[in-house]
């Protein structure tokens, strides 16, 4: 089996883990009105080769003079060379990122985080549930399992957005519907265009269309806004998917990405090195999260 | 050579203006208006603890912040019967010397000098008088440093407090100040030489009164408990009200003062006229060399006085710092009563500053603050009016009149947050 996992020895290649390397933005275009797609190529070839990552991992991106922030890699390691991101404009750094032109450089370091447990997921059915910007890391996973189609069982991709205009990678996913080795279900809360060919309704409504699943043999990967977690988790538990096979990503403020700055700590876990992918079972043990939407209902 | 630092110092002005109203060849009125918004600080500090007052009142003016601090401390310490330790007194003297050099260097070299040399601003002088501009900046930077070391920061330092200081300057800081002060004396002397070399026009000459704080021990200094009026006459600072009957005028948020219905002047000029003979050293020699009766009539000599005073202040610093360094750091003295009244009088760079307080049961009941600029305003108007009248009689045009009036206003070094140099001519 090809080893994609970034192991310790690789990490030590970087002698200063805080040091960004320069990457060139080769493409940047809007996906929705506040999300941009970024494609970057390393200025230094060795650096690009070192950037072997897992779906679900992230990088720290720097803009000179502005600062640094974590972003999930949206591209798949099965198509090496370029790194892709989809980034929402929400604050200072992201605003400055949006002012950069193609051919300008950004600093990148990483990849960081555990990523999805691909080794364990192999041979299993895969159920991916994406909401809003959650599609950023999940696209990486989806493309990866599709590129290695024969190593996985059934694959379902459920994706909800508020409106057609707000659906990330809309055309790409609509095209994926053509594939018969993938159950791709797309929905929007509201169709304000009247042109939307797919479902209208909540992501959770899509579960009805899944048909029967082999719960014990399924890995579910979920990423989306906090409210979505709450309802999707209920469904998945009801479907009887084991809680340690339900994967979710957590988001916390980050300043280093390598477990030093402390900001992303949840009790003794660091979102940046122990996460950002956690199992639902892990999350159920995080006292800080109990009673805060994610896990309360299931406990009760 | 690239020495552009001076650019911003070209013109310092506040929010206000001078209006000269003319009727044919006659001067109807000259008014110096202050538009600066009212702050009512004296009212706001009522009911406050004295220790809090000394945080607030220095914010009246950023340039004279230390004078306000010191005047308040003196007034309140009298009211509360606090006798601050010797080291505190000496350190306060040093901080006042710093403020004096900072203000006088700025005013003489960068604000007044362009007037005398016929340049629109200090920046315009760069080519011909670049060295002088650099001298000014050197002096100012050093003086800022002295203020920072003594008071905690360049502007609104909180280190000086009731009964003493929070932290005294280190021996190293003190000896550095002494060394640098000695080095800079020639820069101050150069200012004296420059201002002594000018012809002073006779237009604004009018007899007037001069008031200044009487420094103790027959020395020249910047604080004391009595007030000298045009040499000779001496009044207790507690009677400051008799000296400065304050009134409000409709065209200004700054209040006015007069003495026995006549205008008077405060500032360097007044200080030197009243106490100049007490100065020793190089500055003393310079005073003796340049003082004349015309100083008593012509406010333009204030600039020369400032330059001599700046020399004096620098010459004082080595001895002052040595004395401070020789003493152990004392604890701050506590108040010995909580009811009483007191007036603190100090010489801010632009003249006598009074802070009068009445404290009852530990709280301030009355605060009365009289700033030097307020005391000078009447005198500025009197001299401007005289000047305008004479120049018009001589058939001078507006283009000559305007700068002449501005020059007079600026000679008083009106504090930038209370007054200004901008002159408008209004023809009826």
């Amino acid at each position, binding site marked *: 089996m090809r080893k994609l996992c970034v192991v310790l020895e690789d990490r030590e290649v970087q002698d200063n883990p805080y040091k960004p390397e320069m990457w060139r933005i080769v493409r940047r275009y809007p996906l929705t009105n506040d999300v941009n797609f970024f494609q970057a190529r390393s200025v230094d070839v060795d650096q690009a080769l070192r950037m072997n990552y897992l779906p679900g991992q992230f990088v720290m991106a720097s803009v000179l003079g502005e600062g640094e922030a974590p972003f999930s890699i949206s591209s798949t390691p099965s198509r090496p060379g370029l790194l892709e991101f989809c980034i929402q404009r929400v604050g200072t750094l992201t605003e400055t990122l949006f002012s950069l032109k193609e051919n300008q450089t950004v600093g990148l370091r990483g990849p960081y985080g555990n990523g999805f447990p691909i080794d364990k997921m192999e041979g299993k059915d895969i159920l991916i549930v994406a909401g809003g910007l959650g599609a950023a890391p999940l696209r990486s996973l989806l493309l990866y399992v599709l590129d290695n189609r024969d190593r996985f069982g059934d694959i379902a991709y459920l994706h909800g957005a508020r409106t057609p205009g707000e659906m990330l990678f809309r055309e790409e996913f609509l095209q994926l519907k053509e594939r018969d080795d993938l159950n791709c279900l797309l929905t929007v809360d509201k169709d304000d265009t009247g042109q939307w060919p797919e479902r209208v309704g909540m992501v959770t409504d899509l579960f009805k269309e899944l048909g029967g699943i082999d719960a014990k043999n399924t890995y579910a990967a979920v990423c989306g806004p906090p409210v979505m977690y709450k309802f999707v988790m209920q469904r998945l538990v009801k479907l009887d998917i084991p809680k340690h096979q339900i994967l979710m990503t957590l988001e916390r403020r980050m300043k280093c990405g390598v477990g030093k700055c402390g900001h992303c700590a949840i009790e003794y876990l660091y979102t940046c090195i122990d996460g950002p992918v956690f199992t639902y079972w892990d999350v159920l043990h995080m006292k800080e999260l109990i009673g805060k939407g994610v896990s309360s209902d299931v406990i009760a | 050579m690239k020495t552009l630092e001076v*650019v911003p*110092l070209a013109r310092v002005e506040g*929010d206000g203006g001078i209006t000269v109203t003319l009727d044919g060849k006659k001067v109807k009125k000259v008014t110096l208006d202050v538009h*600066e918004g*009212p702050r009512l600080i004296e009212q706001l500090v009522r009911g406050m603890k004295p220790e809090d007052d000394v945080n607030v009142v220095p*914010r009246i003016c950023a340039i004279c912040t230390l004078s306000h601090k010191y005047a308040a401390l003196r007034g309140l310490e009298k009211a509360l019967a606090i006798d601050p330790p010797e080291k505190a007194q000496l350190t306060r003297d040093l901080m006042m010397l710093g403020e004096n050099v900072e203000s006088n260097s700025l005013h003489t070299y960068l604000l007044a000098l362009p007037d005398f040399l016929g340049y629109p601003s200090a920046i315009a002088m760069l080519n011909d008088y670049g060295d002088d501009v650099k001298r000014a900046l050197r002096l100012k930077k050093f003086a800022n440093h002295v203020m920072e070391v003594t008071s905690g920061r*360049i502007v609104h330092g909180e280190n000086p*407090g009731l009964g003493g200081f929070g932290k005294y300057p280190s021996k190293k800081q003190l000896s550095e100040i002494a060394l640098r002060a000695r080095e800079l004396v020639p820069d101050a002397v150069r200012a004296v030489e420059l201002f002594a070399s000018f012809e002073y026009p006779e237009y604004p000459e009018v007899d007037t009164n001069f008031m200044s704080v009487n420094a103790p021990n027959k020395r020249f200094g910047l604080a004391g408990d009595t007030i000298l009026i045009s040499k000779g006459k001496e009044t207790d600072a507690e009677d400051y009200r008799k000296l400065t009957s304050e009134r409000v005028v409709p065209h200004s948020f700054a209040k006015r003062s007069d003495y026995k219905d006549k205008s008077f002047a405060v500032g360097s000029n007044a200080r030197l006229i009243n106490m100049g003979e007490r100065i020793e050293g190089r500055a003393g020699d310079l005073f003796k060399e340049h003082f004349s009766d015309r100083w008593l009539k012509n406010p333009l000599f204030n600039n020369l006085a400032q330059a001599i005073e700046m020399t004096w202040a620098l010459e004082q610093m080595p001895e002052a710092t040595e004395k401070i360094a020789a003493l152990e750091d004392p604890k701050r003295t506590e108040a010995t009563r909580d009811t009483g009244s007191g007036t603190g009088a100090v010489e801010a760079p632009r003249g006598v500053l009074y802070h009068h307080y009445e404290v009852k049961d530990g709280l301030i009941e009355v605060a009365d603050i009289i700033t030097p600029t307020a005391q000078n305003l009447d005198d500025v108007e009197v001299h401007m009016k005289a000047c305008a009248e004479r120049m018009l009689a001589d058939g001078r045009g507006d283009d000559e009149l305007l700068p002449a009036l501005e020059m007079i206003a600026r000679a008083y070094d009106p504090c930038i*947050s209370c007054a200004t140099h901008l002159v408008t001519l209004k023809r009826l």
Partner: protein
Amino acid sequence: MSSPKIGVYGFTGCAGDQLMILNCENQLVDLFGATEIRSFSMAKSDNHEGELDVAFVEGSISTEEQLEHLKDIRKRAKMLIAIGTCACWGGPQAMKLEEGGFEKRYKGVYGNAKITVSKAFEAQPVDAFVRVELKIPGCPIDKSEFLGAVSKLVAKRHPYLYRFPVCAECKWKENPCILWEGKFCAGPLTKAGCGAVCPSHNMPCVGCWGPTDDLNVGAEYNLLKEKGYGPDEIVQKMKKFGGAGVAKLVKEIKPTAKEKEANK
């Protein structure tokens, strides 16, 4: 990169912030080089009004005339930055904001005399009247905090100012805590940025940077009461500089459980 057009304006205050800009001796050349200073009447006389990229406004607003001027600046400026605590919070002259009594205090100073220059009112911070993009507080502003922010703006980046209280910087300087001695210190309530100058001189923070993002005014109040301060005195000390910001906060002070008990 075209250099941004800048204007610097002063209203009611001590002019200390403009003075601090002028005191940035070593960086002034850079400042004037990197920007186009269109108006800065405290520093130069050839001032051109017109469109501005950034307007720096010092001082609180306390007359009708100032208010008109302020609105005009706002109209012309893409970005308006309040500099100094007077502009950000109202400053000392706004310490009685929301307590009333302005007329009385005004009369206390000017009597019944008529002043025709402009109509005056109780001083208020700039953002009480117009939108403000950034506040750089301080009485006066700190050189490096100010220059840091301006450098970022010139480079088309976002300024970052400390959001935590003075206590953090105070501990960086390793000072013993004044509150621990039972004395008032406004450090926990006050935005950092000054380098904790006052506590570093063994003097309490007087709050001259104005309130910080996150503070617990009730806790400080209760602590000081335990240490023997009277309620009025505590509030007065808290309100010395923070004007509008602190006025809002002190309303939140609630009696502690113990006090409620005692009042019953």
